[in-house]
């Protein structure tokens, strides 16, 4: 329950004015036991009405004090020791102060500590409850946070990969060579980024199935009609990555074959997947 909303609904003021329905009162009594904010709001509203009563006090008619004391007497509401004189009397202050201090010693102290004990156990109960609640909530929040963090990491690494690729494309020294699927694999596509200055070669598999188990894609540079090994595409690479291959000083075309894991010295022409000339 949203306690702030509950307090600002006006239910507490309705309650202290005697307006709340029975049902509302029983709900309120239940909440105030466990919620110090509500308890405090009730006390504040009550204090306001007390202050209102103070501000609207009316002078009492004379004699009423004696009349009331007499009335208490006639209704037998005064214990014997005080009846000795039915006339209203003022007891010297020493007496009463002594009496108060005696009362304090024998009654208030245990009463007080009892009160503290209740307050303490109530606080303990609230605290234990709150702890369990917070602990559970904390667990939930933590696992949510973990999920978000791992998602964020995934996104970040993906972004980094794309950024690397973007940098390649942006670089004026880089030549981008699209490799297209051969006759029986028309939808295969890959890109070779070839740095004309450093001679570095990067391969990005754009649209090709993941290499089957035990197999690996291998890049070849066609140099003067002869295939030169340009390296294998890493097995664990992210599918979007532009992987750095072997440097190739000159070439007229690039091609990819699907070879046994580790690659071969010469390409298996029947396993040719894509190729593109410069």
């Amino acid at each position, binding site marked *: 329950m949203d306690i702030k909303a509950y307090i*600002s*609904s*006006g*239910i*507490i*003021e*309705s309650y*202290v*004015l*005697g*307006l*709340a*329905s029975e049902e509302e009162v029983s709900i309120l009594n239940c909440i105030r036991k466990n919620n110090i904010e509500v308890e405090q709001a009730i*006390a*504040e*509203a*009550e*204090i*306001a*009405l*007390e*202050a*209102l*009563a*103070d*501000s*609207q*006090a*009316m*002078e*009492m*008619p004379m004699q*009423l*004090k004696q*009349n*009331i*004391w007499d*009335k*208490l007497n006639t*209704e037998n*509401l*005064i*214990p014997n020791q*005080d009846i000795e004189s039915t006339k*209203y*009397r*003022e*007891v*010297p*202050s020493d007496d*009463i102060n002594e*009496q*108060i201090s005696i*009362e*304090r010693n024998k*009654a*208030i102290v245990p009463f*007080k500590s009892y*009160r503290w004990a*209740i307050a303490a156990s109530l606080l303990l109960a609230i605290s234990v409850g709150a702890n369990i609640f917070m602990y559970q909530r904390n667990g939930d929040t933590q696992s949510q946070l973990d999920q978000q963090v791992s998602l964020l990491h995934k996104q970040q690494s993906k972004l980094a990969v794309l950024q690397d690729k973007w940098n390649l494309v942006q670089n004026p020294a880089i030549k981008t060579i699209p490799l297209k699927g051969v006759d029986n694999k028309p939808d295969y596509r890959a890109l070779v980024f070839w740095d004309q200055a450093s001679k570095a070669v990067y391969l990005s598999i754009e649209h090709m199935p993941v290499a089957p188990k035990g197999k690996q894609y291998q890049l070849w540079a066609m140099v003067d009609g002869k295939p030169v090994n340009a390296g294998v595409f890493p097995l664990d690479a992210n599918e979007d990555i532009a992987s750095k291959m072997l440097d190739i000083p000159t070439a007229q075309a690039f091609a990819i074959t699907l070879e046994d894991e580790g690659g071969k010295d010469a390409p298996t022409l029947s396993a040719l997947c894509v190729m593109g000339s410069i």
Partner: protein
Amino acid sequence: MSPLHNLSEETLILLLKKKNQQAFSYLYDHYASALFGVICRIVDSSEHAEEVIQDVFVKIWRHIDLFDIEKGRLYTWMINIARNTALDHRKSKAIINEKKNQPLSNIVNREEEQDQSQNEQHTKADFIGFKNILDNLKPEWRILIEMAYYEGYTQQEIAEQLAVPLGTVKTRTRAAFLQLQQLLKEYR
């Protein structure tokens, strides 16, 4: 005056439970006029108010053992006794006299009523004129507090009389309280 000064609520309750005469004196000196003020706003006449305040003290005296400091404030408890006794008294008198219920118009047109009731003895107009902090409240809020607190209307009745939804009664009650608390702060 009582020889007792500044008793803590706890001590006062303890002495009241022992039916101590000084405690009665202290109670009377410190709270009677405020309780009387509440009663005067509810009952018809000062005569009735005097009857009621006596009943209230007897009730407090008789039921002090039922008062539980854990569950509330002594002053509030006494104010509620005064208020309920006065409301009951008014209801019983209203039945006896079969008089028409006209409290609403009383509130709405206090001044008018004051003129009208000049020849009616022992009406609430007796008390009009004493300082009323509620007069400084926004009228639509004041009427709500007066109806609820001094007239004993139920929430439902107030909503019907003022032709506003029940929820509005609650939110206005809160607004009224917030302003009242402000006014009381300035008053002190």
